[in-house]
């Protein structure tokens, strides 16, 4: 069977609260990063405070929530985080959210690779039928990356955000299992493949 944790540039690794709480605190010092990722106003949280909520969520091992850290294959460097939350079991749909905290890895294809790995995990290990995400209108780099991974625009919430004195849309994108399988030439149960 396919390796569901490895991509071409990155691999999905354990989301360890002690390591990730420190990383989150560091990454969140960057307000640009926060503004691309979060709709809530920027704030600072200590590693200890981050660790508290992380430990609780991660320990639960609920079938509805999956957390990963993102590490580069080349240097095994921790560069970001990824989360998948199932919202509707009957419809088999989940929300994905990812962030690459190490800014030197932006615009180099890492985001797209992470998304490709995530989609393989979502469709062939959690057996979802669709994956949804939302992204802010002022984040064209991410939007392009998701389009490359196969996501389609499904609509937007108008004037959802208020930043820097103007309103912005929150864009909704989605990908269906059949679409992903076709994009990746996935015959069921095929071995290998990118």
């Amino acid at each position: 069977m396919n390796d569901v944790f490895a991509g071409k540039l990155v691999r999905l690794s354990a989301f360890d609260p002690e390591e990730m709480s420190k990383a989150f605190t560091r990454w969140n010092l960057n307000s640009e990063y926060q503004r691309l990722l979060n709709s809530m106003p920027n704030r600072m949280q200590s590693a200890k405070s981050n660790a508290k909520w992380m430990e609780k969520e991660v320990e639960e091992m609920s079938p509805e929530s999956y957390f990963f850290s993102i590490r580069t294959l080349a240097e095994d460097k921790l560069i970001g985080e990824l989360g998948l939350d199932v919202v509707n079991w009957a419809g088999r749909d989940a929300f994905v959210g990812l962030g690459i905290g190490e800014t030197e890895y932006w615009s180099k294809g890492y985001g797209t690779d992470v998304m490709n790995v995530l989609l393989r995990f979502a469709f062939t290990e959690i057996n979802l039928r669709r994956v949804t995400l939302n992204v802010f209108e002022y984040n064209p780099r991410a939007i392009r990356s998701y389009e490359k991974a196969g996501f389609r625009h499904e609509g937007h919430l108008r004037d959802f955000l208020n930043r820097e004195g103007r309103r912005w849309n929150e864009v909704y994108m989605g990908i269906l299992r059949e679409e992903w399988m076709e994009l990746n030439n996935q015959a069921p149960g095929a071995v290998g493949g990118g």
Partner: protein
Amino acid sequence: MFDIQTQLFEGQDIRFGPIDHEKDPEIEAKWTHDSEFMRLMETSPARPMSAAMIKKQYEKLEKQIEEDKNLYHFMIRVKADDRFIGKASIYWIEWANGNGNIRLGIGAAEDRRKGYGTQALGMLLRFAFAELNLFRVTANVPEYNEGAIALLQKFGFMQEVCRRRSLERDGRRWDLYVFGLLNDEWRNRVRA
């Protein structure tokens, strides 16, 4: 023959041991990042875990063993260098009915195909039948796990149930087989 001398926990090349809370978590954490292994070992989704998370799991496991009294868990170690290579357990034990489920896995890829799985299963069955006095043991295996199926058949397990299309993985549905072995059957084979 009433044999209390033959070691329950010592095999030819491997032995069963307790959890080493200091050293084992890091090793098992690595196995959880091997999705191929996890997909053979578990039907629940593969999830990479850190050593700290595994350590917490070990604590929960030992608590469960003590409280529920229907579970036995062994760590498999290579005798030569005491290396932790896998795990074996008997779970869902129903004492009144005399049955239990078994599972085992060799986590380190380089330690597979060395006959350790065969040795471990032999020891596990002896423990189940000659020490726990179970009447039968059950093993659940997905149809894609040919290695496990071959191993169970080697020991005389019979395929009893085919749970059709019970699992979904890698974009398709798979059957889940239920295998069973009775105490008498085991005893006869061991004597032979």
